């Protein structure tokens, strides 16, 4: 197996006419790391991948793979593996011929390429199905063949462009775990594009969140969920209640600031960046809010039962808030109209610029 390679993307910028699709993005992917590019559509995640793959060239910036500058190299000379969104298996070749195709392009003798294609098919647990045409395989099997085809020539890096979005939910979850295991077994560097946050958090060592062509935050799934650096990340990863208010004094990053909430009440939270006194925004996750004897006044509007958890929707002087309670919590039974108070630990709430 070829050594996995590190990828460095520096100052990547790509414009399509007046639109800046990718704006000065820096990414460093360690050798053997699994990095997810996560963002809504139009965030630039696919454009970044296309630039790494070589289907598109940047307007500014550079890309190196394993220390080699590949910024303007055509795709066939980058020695990367790629799995596309739709399977893109060649319909006129059998599964095994598809897997052997990259070896054929590398002029590897027939006997060896047949042996290696079979090996790769066995790696993705499709050993007996190599003779079938793509049209005779299920969606999941086709994607496994595509995966075998992308790793058979032992590339240093595997790029994946929403490879599971065409599969149904159960199969998708099964493939997520399988791809993760395969990546660990091969020790290959993976860059994985997805718009599905659960997929990104489940599979990736680190996730980079993009919005409007800009890198919002890059970090481990836990860092992103626990300490989102921007309001966009806080809203995009998981569920968050936002509440506008006014800071009475400036707050340094990581410091606890005191915010007067719009519509009454006040609360403490950790500043995500340097904030001046004045308008600011508080973010707190539904599962971090407690119903308490004292705190911010609220009235139960609705209780939504969902088995293991119950979501309460509460009216406050400001926005409506969502609170998630474990099934064992007696407050789950709160009737609509019940007056209560809300509290949270300052470390569980964060402050962002308004």
């Amino acid at each position, binding site marked *: 197996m070829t050594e996995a390679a590190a990828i460095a993307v520096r100052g990547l910028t790509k414009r399509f006419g007046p639109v800046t699709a990718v704006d000065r993005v820096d990414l460093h992917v360690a050798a053997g790391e699994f990095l997810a590019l996560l963002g809504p559509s139009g965030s630039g995640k696919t454009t970044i991948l296309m630039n790494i*793959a*070589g*289907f598109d060239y940047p307007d500014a910036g550079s890309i190196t793979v394993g220390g080699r500058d590949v910024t303007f190299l*055509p*795709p*066939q000379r980058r*020695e*990367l*593996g*790629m799995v*596309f969104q*739709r*399977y*893109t*298996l*060649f*319909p*006129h070749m059998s599964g095994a011929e598809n897997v052997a*195709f*990259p070896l*054929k*392009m*590398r002029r590897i003798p027939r006997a060896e390429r047949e042996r290696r294609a079979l090996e790769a098919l066995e790696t993705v647990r499709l050993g007996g199905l190599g003779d079938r*045409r*793509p*049209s005779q395989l299920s969606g999941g099997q*086709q994607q496994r063949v595509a995966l075998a*085809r*992308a790793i058979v*020539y032992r590339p240093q890096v595997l790029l994946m462009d929403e490879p599971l979005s065409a599969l149904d939910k159960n199969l998708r979850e099964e493939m997520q775990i399988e791809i993760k295991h395969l990546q660990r077994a091969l020790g290959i560097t993976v860059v994985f594009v997805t718009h599905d946050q659960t997929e990104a958090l489940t599979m990736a060592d680190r996730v980079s969140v993009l919005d409007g062509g800009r890198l919002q935050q890059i970090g481990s799934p836990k860092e992103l969920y626990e300490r989102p650096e921007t309001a966009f990340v806080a809203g995009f990863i998981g569920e968050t209640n936002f509440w506008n208010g006014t800071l009475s004094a400036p707050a340094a990053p990581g410091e606890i600031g005191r915010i007067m909430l719009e519509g009454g009440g006040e609360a403490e939270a950790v500043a995500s960046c340097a904030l001046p006194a004045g308008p600011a925004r508080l973010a707190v996750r539904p599962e971090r809010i407690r119903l308490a004897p004292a705190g911010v006044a609220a009235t139960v509007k609705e209780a939504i039962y969902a088995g293991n958890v119950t979501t309460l929707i509460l009216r406050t002087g400001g926005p409506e808030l969502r609170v998630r309670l474990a099934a064992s919590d007696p407050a789950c039974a709160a009737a609509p109209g019940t007056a209560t108070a809300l509290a949270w630990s300052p470390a569980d709430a964060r402050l962002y610029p308004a």
Partner: protein
Amino acid sequence: MSARPSTLLLGGRRYSPAGSLLLAAPFFLILLLAFVLPLLMLLRESAFVPAPNLTHYARVFEQPAYLRILLRTLRIAAEATVITLLLGYPLAWLMSRSRGWRLALLLACVLLPLWTSVLVRTYAWLVLLQRDGVVNQILMELHVIAAPLTLLYTEGAVVLAMAHVLLPFMVLPLYSTLRAIPEDYARAARMLGASDFAAFREVVLPLSMPGAASGCLLVFLLSLGFFVTPALIGGPQQKMLATLVQQQVTELLNWPFAGAIVGVLLLIVLVLVAVFNRLVRLDRFVGQA
């Protein structure tokens, strides 16, 4: 679920058998009266009048003059097919990769000639190729040649003019096939290490074969029965089967022999269509993800 209505559903998706028949009836009536019946009468004339016999058919193959015309027809049709394929494939490929006004322009270039009379287009070639025509004049002006070349009434001229007239029938099926091949296939091939040319040779070319096959069949069949262009550009020296039929019918009033020629032509066409059907069905079995 309620019972499926069996009446004709205008605007619905399903038509009852009676409804379908009603919709197709005018077409089938014309087909029957203007094509099937006259054809059957002509074939009956060729082999069953006054008694069942094959003498007229034997004449087509026994007389060297007629056999030569038959072979020339097949050869010219094959040559025209090859030339339209060579000219049409790059054009169709370019069209399949174009969008917006570029595509509209290319489509117009292909379709406009199709909407122009074949006669007009053939006369244009006459003007270009005749003894004191445009081509000879230019070549003489440039001192490439001293005396005018004989361009008209040659097999080359017939093939060229026919290829020009029939080009759209090659380009259109090729274009629709190439257009349906997702660009991702070529992308995937390049990602996997194929050069641009190898990606084309290994993936796009094999997947475009059904379009090439139907284009070739269309052009070849149309060439076999082509009348106007060979008659005007080829003259008496380059006579093809259609011209021979016309001569037998209008000049010699030899209906049975004309019928025999039509019978032979029809047989060739049917065999080709049958072969093509087998090939395409085979392809359907192979392809389509």
